[in-house]
């Protein structure tokens, strides 16, 4: 007796991925658009809790960035000064309202600008617990080097 050969039915399963590709394309365009318009370059480098504000009126512009955290003052993404729980060391508070180290750093940053006499903008990202005395000293140091148009970065809430 001849063995009966069962003919296997060749059924090709094909996943319909065209619609999936469509969804991915839309998602990708949305994310890329968001990414391009996002403020990744001004994201804080240190651990900061920014103050919250209901509907702020200005967009953050690209300019020199200074961050004030509990332990550091960071200028242009480089830590330049140590703070002790938001307080300056004694050597930084001895000469007037400004900090000598920060004055030097800001003066150096001004020289690095393409046109040193133009561009007085400064993006300030300070922790919400920063006392006014610390903020004032940083602002005075920046103002001494000509950075007088401040942008206080806040988190916008609905």
């Amino acid at each position: 007796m001849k063995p009966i050969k069962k003919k296997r039915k060749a059924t090709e399963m094909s996943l319909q991925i065209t619609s999936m590709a469509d969804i991915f394309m839309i998602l990708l365009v949305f994310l890329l658009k968001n990414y391009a318009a996002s403020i990744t370059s001004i994201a804080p480098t240190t651990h900061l809790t920014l103050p919250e504000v209901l509907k702020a009126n200005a967009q953050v512009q690209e300019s020199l960035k200074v961050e004030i955290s509990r332990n550091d003052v960071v200028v242009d993404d480089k830590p330049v000064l140590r703070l002790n729980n938001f307080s300056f060391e004694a050597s930084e508070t001895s000469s007037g309202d400004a900090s000598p180290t920060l004055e030097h750093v800001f003066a150096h940053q001004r020289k690095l600008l393409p046109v040193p006499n133009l561009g007085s903008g400064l993006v300030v990202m300070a922790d919400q617990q920063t006392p006014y005395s610390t903020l004032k000293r940083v602002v005075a140091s920046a103002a001494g080097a000509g950075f007088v148009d401040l942008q206080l970065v806040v988190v916008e809430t609905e």
Partner: protein
Amino acid sequence: MNVGESSSQEVDLNLAPIIDCFTVLITYLLVTASFLTLAAVDVGVSATGTAPTVDAGTPPMSMMLELKAGGDVSIAVQGGALSHEIDINVKALQNSTQDVSELESRLHQLQAKWPQITDVSVTADPTILYKNIVEVIHKVQAIMPKVYISS
């Protein structure tokens, strides 16, 4: 030769590699995306110094806000035709924070009375926290757009 026989060829685009690329790209974008909306409050820096010794005529009207330690806010208006400085004290709330709504209404009254005042200088007690300063500046800016921080 097969005349009239239609050669129906199904062209299938292979989407799998594209999907792979998309998956990797979307994952990367989602991980690195920042969903916080950052904005800015624009302020200028006002210089503090000694008063000029030479009489340069009548100084223009100016307004100064001082955030005090207990939460009180002092508003000082001087210059212009005023013969003396006007001081207004906005009392703090029960929890020693600034009464921002009361401050807003006082500023509206002052602006209605002296529309020539367009800028405000803000100063604070050394212990006042940045978040309170920003909150006050933000509210003041809605009424008087030019706000300066005393350096």
